[in-house]
């Protein structure tokens, strides 16, 4: 399958991008950083192509469906959203060096999807319950939400690192070049949480509509569903605290890390909980 080859190449390309970002820092060469950005955009293009091809191939196999239906496909898409959101943030702030923190995550996610023995990359037909346009909307919006929260988590880490180097200006020193000003970071953390919150809300909503057409109940407190609600509540909590009680950047950053733990648990934690409707592959 051509899409598998492309996605393997893309995995490898992310490793190159991550290395370039790292070299640009170590050798203090801004052209390396620019090169890293350009190659990352190209890799994202290849990544997009791989996903679209997989879509097309499923139709050629005679049971076409959007490539968001199992753990492999969801990981591939997750890596895609992470890279996209990162590149947009990079464009907005002009801080190329942040790629050192983010692109390795895209690489690891794809590598895990491709090489973990538990995860099959085979294109298989959909069981009847998964045949729904609402499900496609659900998966896409949930992952955009996850990507928003992942970015805010990365930015929060930077914020916490930066706190010990607050006196360093944007131009000087390792930390100065690596990490934007605390003020900027604080604003970005907030903005990315808003993106995550908006999309998670739409994700939960479209998921509810899907559940309602498939089973007749829009909310059944299944563990994955409940964890998405927990995540949502944590971020609602953060937004209200910031707005009404004026929480500091540090508090926001720490809570955003907590929020992202909940995101990870929502995504992968169902292995450790009672099986529900969402367990990939089980039902």
């Amino acid at each position, binding site marked *: 399958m051509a899409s598998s080859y492309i996605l393997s190449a893309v995995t490898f390309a992310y490793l190159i991008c991550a290395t370039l970002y790292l070299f640009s820092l170590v050798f203090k060469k801004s052209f390396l950083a620019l090169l890293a950005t350009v190659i990352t955009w190209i890799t994202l293009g290849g990544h997009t192509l791989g996903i679209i091809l997989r879509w097309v191939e499923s139709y050629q196999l005679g*049971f076409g469906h959007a490539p968001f239906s199992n753990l492999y496909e969801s990981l591939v898409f997750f890596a895609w959203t992470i890279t996209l959101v990162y590149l947009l943030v990079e464009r907005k702030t002009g801080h190329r060096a942040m790629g050192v923190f983010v692109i390795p995550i895209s690489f690891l996610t794809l590598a895990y999807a491709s090489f973990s023995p538990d995860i099959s990359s085979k294109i*298989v*037909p959909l*069981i*009847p*319950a998964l*045949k*729904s346009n609402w499900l496609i909307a659900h998966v896409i919006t949930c992952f955009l939400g996850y990507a928003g929260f992942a970015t805010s988590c990365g930015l929060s880490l930077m914020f916490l690192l930066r706190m010990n180097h607050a006196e360093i200006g944007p131009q000087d020193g390792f930390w100065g070049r690596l990490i934007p000003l605390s003020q900027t970071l604080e*604003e970005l953390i907030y903005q990315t949480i*808003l993106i995550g*919150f*908006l999309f998670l*809300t*739409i994700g939960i*909503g479209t998921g*509810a*509509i*899907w559940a*309602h*057409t*498939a*089973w*007749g*109940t*829009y*909310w059944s*407190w299944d*563990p994955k569903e*409940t*964890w998405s*609600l*927990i995540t949502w*509540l*944590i971020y*609602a*909590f953060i937004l*209200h*605290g910031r707005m*009404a*009680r004026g929480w500091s950047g540090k508090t926001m950053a720490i809570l955003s890390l907590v929020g992202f733990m909940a995101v990870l648990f929502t995504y992968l934690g169902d292995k450790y*909980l*009672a099986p529900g409707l969402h367990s990939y592959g089980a039902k």
Partner: protein
Amino acid sequence: MSIKKKSIGEHVFDFFASVRLSLILLAGVAAVSILGTLIPQGEEPEVYAQYLGPRLFDVFESLGFFDMYHAPWFLFILLLLALNLIGCSLKRFPKTMGILKAPIRLDEGVFKKEEFHYQIKLDAPLERVKTFLTDVVAKHYPNRPAQDDSPEKLMLYGEKGGLSRLGPYIIHTSVLLIFLGAFIGTRWGFEGRLTLSEGERSGVIRLKQTDMPKELGFSVKCDKFSVSFYENGMPKEYRTDLTVIEGGRVVEKAAIRVNDPFTYKGVTFYQSNYGTMGDNITLGVRPAAGGEEKIVKLDSHLETPIPGVGLVKLANFYPNLMKMGPAVKLAVAAGAEEPEAVVLFQKAPDFDKRRQGKSILTLKSFTERYYTGLQVNSDPGVWLVWLGCGIMVAGFLITFYVSHRRIYVLAQSQPDGTIITFSGRVNRNKLAFKRELDRLCQTVQANLQKAE
């Protein structure tokens, strides 16, 4: 001003309207939900008892920990959250309206107060810049325009995006709508099941919670059930063809698939499961003491009296039981005794001898037939939930991506031209507003300089 002492009523109201309470409640609901995913919900009592031991079991049971999301105290937390939302909105709404409706004061004092300041100097005299400035402000900040025009200075005011301040109210209303929809659904809706074999008709479903029968007021007949498979053996589609019959007349025909339910008069039918059952079952009956075998037809739904045996009812049908082929399980009631379970294998005619009854039963023949399992629900509140979701998303967009931008412009006549001061205020997205003001200054400067 003297500090008034608050009455108890005001204290109570303030508590209910505080964001502090809402933080506690949001965290509370999250904590309970976490607990609910750690303790599996809705299992059989024996399972819990085995894990917990009798003492803990009693404690957990009385706290409703096995069905937390429906426990009275959880509903009470949700009720508090709703009250909190209402109280908070009632308390703040007048203030917000105050900001949106505040009279506009145009004097030079406002320029000292505002957060953003820009000043540009032009060679053009005041008279020449007036129309352009007025137009630019009216175009970009069209709401609530105000101006103060005099020969030596011009002051302008304009704003937009005031809706942004109402965003949180919109979001909070949507949360209440969802709560209301869910409440209406649980109070006046129902969830039930209906199993129909091909050709069977029924107007009575079984409620899920209580297992009580419920009349639909019309009946449905399963015309056909079909299942299709992909080449690799995975199921592709489950489909039930249904006819709705009301008042003795056929009123509608529909096909139900997974993800494609069918609604009639507010009752929705979902494809849920399926299976096969035996029909046209014939049994052989012969006395254990020896004698001739008689053939008896078994009704698949009712008790059939069989002489010498008693009342026989079909309890279950197995296409392939214990890898020994087709089998039936019967409930046999002889006289006043408890019904006895009797299993018959088609391929093992002598199996029933082991029961050592007065008669020996055998399974002679049957036809196999699909039945379809339908989930039958009515939820009169669901549209409110969807409305709430839609409004919530709209509310987020308004709150997060619209901002209330207010701008003051002062143009003062100077001996050698005009000084224009811009100043503005915004309730969120300060960086974006700063950039917007930058651009505005540049536009003004470029255009008025060019005009000379």
